[in-house]
């Protein structure tokens, strides 16, 4: 098997796919749905935001290993973070997906770093960023309110 594939399907990714963290929905929280129109994947992210902090985050949906693992990792990482930092992480994650140099600064990507291999598979980048786009849309919508 090619080593590129092994870079894509890292053990930790498969673990999140098989045992997703924070799967479910939060009642009365800010929820946002996003579809990947090219493949039919569907991710719903819900967050409880208090005093500008993400107190709780969950996801629900159907999708491939990459999109579900990314959603699972994202909810793990953003829990407890100020909304601003979550958005910063989202940008860092996008840079990483484009194969660019990125600087984590004080933030910690955690397991998300395992998704680096996706950048070598352009067709799969949308899978990995789906949950993040839902997060961004959700937060932006809340700000507009």
């Amino acid at each position, binding site marked *: 098997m090619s080593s590129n594939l092994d870079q894509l399907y890292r*053990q930790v990714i498969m673990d999140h796919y098989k045992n997703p963290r924070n799967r479910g929905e939060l009642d009365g929280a800010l929820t946002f749905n996003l579809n990947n129109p090219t493949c039919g994947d569907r991710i719903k992210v819900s967050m409880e935001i208090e005093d500008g902090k993400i107190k709780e985050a969950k996801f629900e949906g159907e999708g491939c290993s990459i999109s579900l693992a990314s959603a699972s990792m994202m909810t793990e990482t953003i829990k407890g973070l100020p909304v601003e930092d979550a958005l910063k992480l989202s940008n860092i994650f996008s840079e990483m997906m484009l194969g660019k140099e990125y600087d984590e600064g004080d933030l910690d990507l955690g397991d998300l770093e395992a998704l680096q291999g996706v950048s070598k598979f352009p067709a*799969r980048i949308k899978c990995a960023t789906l949950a993040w786009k839902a997060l961004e849309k959700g937060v932006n919508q809340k700000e507009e309110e």
Partner: protein
Amino acid sequence: MISKEIRKQFPILDQEVNGKPLVYLDSAATSQKPISVIETLDHYYKNDNSNVHRGVHTLGTRATDSYEGAREKVRHFINASSMEEVIFLRGTTTAINTIASSYGRANVGEDDEIVITPMEHHSNIIPWQQLAKQTGAKLKYIPLQEDGTIDLSDVENTITEHTKIVSIMHVSNVLGTINPIKEIAKIAHKNGAVMVVDGAQAAPHMHVDVRDLDCDFYAFSAHKMCGPTGIGVMYGKKKLLENMEPAEFGGEMIDFVGLYESTWKDLPWKFEGGTPIIAGAIGLGAAIDFLEQIGRDEIEKIEHELVEYAMERMSAVEGLKIFGPEKRAGLVTFNIDDVHPHDVATVLDAEGIAVRAGHHCAQPLMKWLDVTATARASFYIYNTKEDVDALIDGLKTTKEYFGHVF
């Protein structure tokens, strides 16, 4: 031409992808192009390029002759009565949209019905949804049998005297189902409706005789039948086309233009506003020459043998679920264990094998199948049994790989 000879005509197939020989199994999305089509386009741009139907210079005459010559090839290919019934448009999607907006808006009203099926491609659903919304007409679906076929008694029960348009795909891009268009057209006509056929997956692969089918409209795209992208055909019966308004207005399609009123050219040009898709049509003509040189009986035979072999070998792969009926066109849609089709396609791609993964522009059908997505291997004249063998090996690798990482 035997299979190996045919394959040699497609230069793109002779390459490695990810270090493995390319196995192209995505022809239902778009087919590859033979050297004759590529050279025809090259020749046209190097020697004859000019605008058509205007001017008196030599290049203009050459371009016009080639463009109209392609129309005659299409007429013959689908056995239309006359060239006036062959309209060049951008593709199947544009053709169906044109039928819906031009014929539909003029002939469908509030108490009328439009009848389609849940297996349709989005391009044969949304134009009718929009027409139904605009006119207040009712959009109805012929239910499917469990194996993804249509039962004529359901057709009888769905189409009524209020039905004005019936629009159905000739061959399903997901299930491979070959629909009984001729019989459905009879039922449509008995009720006073017109029969529209989405032929995108049929025209490249089988005999299409619009007079025998007795359909009123037939739409297909060149790029799925060895031709270039950006060109397709809207066939319509002359008496219907004559009474339809053009969908686009501008140059090329006019007879006389005044300050406040204009009149249109005759058929087929009144539907071809703007500089037409000249090179595209000429490329389509070359594609038809190529397909007719092989012969459609031979094309059907090659694909039939391939899909039979693929079905036999794929059925033997444990954990692999195949969608669609036993009797099918040259494609196999499947899912494998719990591996998401996107992941299947990525692992296959690493092996040089190109398949499609996703909803195949058929979200209502995915819902009907109760899946979010599927993978699809589709075959064409240049594929061989070795390609099927490579697919089977790739599927085994996929299973092993995901069995291993789980």
